[in-house]
């Protein structure tokens, strides 16, 4: 096992990503953030937490998206369902999709399909904590990356969160 990000590095990375998002979406006017269920939510919660210290809280539009119904592997097995909560219109908005690990790209493909059922955004960007480069099965890339890593398919990236797993850490298993 190799630690990719320890607690302090993880905090700094989240801080950096938050500032980058803000730098490119001045005061979040016309921008909404959508975390992908289930594990992307821990990451997006942290970003939103940071944003609240930097902009007026009511300027932040934050939603959660469950992509289970859009997966391409329903017939081979069912997955746990989670709540979708998008209490605002995404029509003509800049949407920032947030997930913890970008790997094959299939989750993001499903998320894009799901998102379009809520309206027609002006633009969609992708923000991920870990980008497992060179392992994509679909032509999908992130706009904002916490840490790119090179890994082989048999390896696993595990993101631990204090709220869920009792510690903040990213490890390569």
């Amino acid at each position: 096992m190799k630690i990719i990000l320890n607690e302090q590095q993880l905090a700094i990375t989240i801080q950096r990503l938050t500032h980058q998002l803000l730098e490119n979406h001045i005061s979040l006017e016309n921008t909404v953030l959508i975390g992908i269920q289930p594990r992307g939510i821990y990451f997006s919660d942290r970003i939103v937490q940071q944003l609240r210290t930097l902009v007026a809280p009511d300027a932040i539009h934050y939603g959660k998206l469950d992509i289970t119904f859009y997966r391409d592997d329903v017939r081979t097995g069912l997955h746990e369902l989670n709540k979708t909560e998008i209490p605002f219109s995404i029509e003509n908005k800049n949407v920032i999709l947030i997930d913890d690990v970008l790997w094959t790209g299939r989750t993001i493909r499903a998320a894009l399909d799901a998102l379009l059922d809520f309206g027609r955004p002006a633009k969609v960007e992708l923000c991920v904590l870990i980008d497992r480069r060179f392992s994509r099965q679909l032509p999908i890339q992130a706009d904002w990356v916490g840490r790119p890593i090179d890994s082989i398919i048999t390896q696993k990236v595990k993101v631990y969160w204090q709220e869920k797993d009792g510690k903040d850490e990213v490890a390569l298993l």
Partner: protein
Amino acid sequence: MQLSTKHLLGIRDLQPDDIQLILDTATQFKEVLQRPIKKVPTLRDVTIVNLFYENSTRTRISFELAEKRLSADTINFTASGSSAAKGETLLDTVNNILSMKVDMVVMRHSASGAPHFLAKHIPAAIVNAGDGINEHPTQALLDAFSIRERLGSLAGKKVAIIGDIMHSRVALSNIWLLKKMGAEVTLAGPPTLIPVHIREAFDVRVEYNLRAALEWCDVANVLRIQLERQNQPLFSSLREYSLAYGVNKRLLDSLSKEIVIMHPGPINRGVELDSDAADSKQSIILHQVENGVAVRMAVLYLLAGGSTKP
């Protein structure tokens, strides 16, 4: 995450966990139905035949909508106007349809046990949409979903099922489900419409006085008088039935608490339920219909999912 059965033949065969899973899944589908685009691509590659050997409005439309909202391909079969009228057997009809690569069968039949028979002979998953006087599982599930939505949970809730228990598959499925989920059940109606040994068979209460049943319950599920299934008269007239067992607003207002009114439809207005009660704020009849689509989506999704697991 998977149901313990391959078919939905009746609530009788389900575990409490299965019921919980279906209701929780339906909650997610209800959210889908409130989106600008009320459709998900989940069952894109699934073909479903709706096999209706008996008349239906709500159930057939509800299943068809559920299938379409899930992006499944659907075929509708009604007995009249088909080769069933020429004497083709049920099994032959279904095997012919299945040979055209159909994955699931939703069926309603006037013979109790017809879907159980079919389940023994065909590979496709079967959803029972009502068989004779046996079960109507998706109705019981949507009733449970509606009660849960209004009252928060099923456990410990008091539900009165009122009217024609004898001929009602809705009643039987509801009793199975409510008992499995820890609710209390009272059956109320004229003695001729309540099966003799049902009290011992299901551990339910039986009450012949309507007012007493309504005073006791949190929810009253009023059933339709099924004249088409009665071979001999079991009460003297509809008017007499209505006087003794008809639920109306005056009666509801005279109770010590406000109860929830349900009805599986179609309502015989003025017989088992008066218009002023059916259309009152206490009634969740139209919510039941709305929830029906979400519950049926959940059932179809859970049965289709994982069906080709390697």
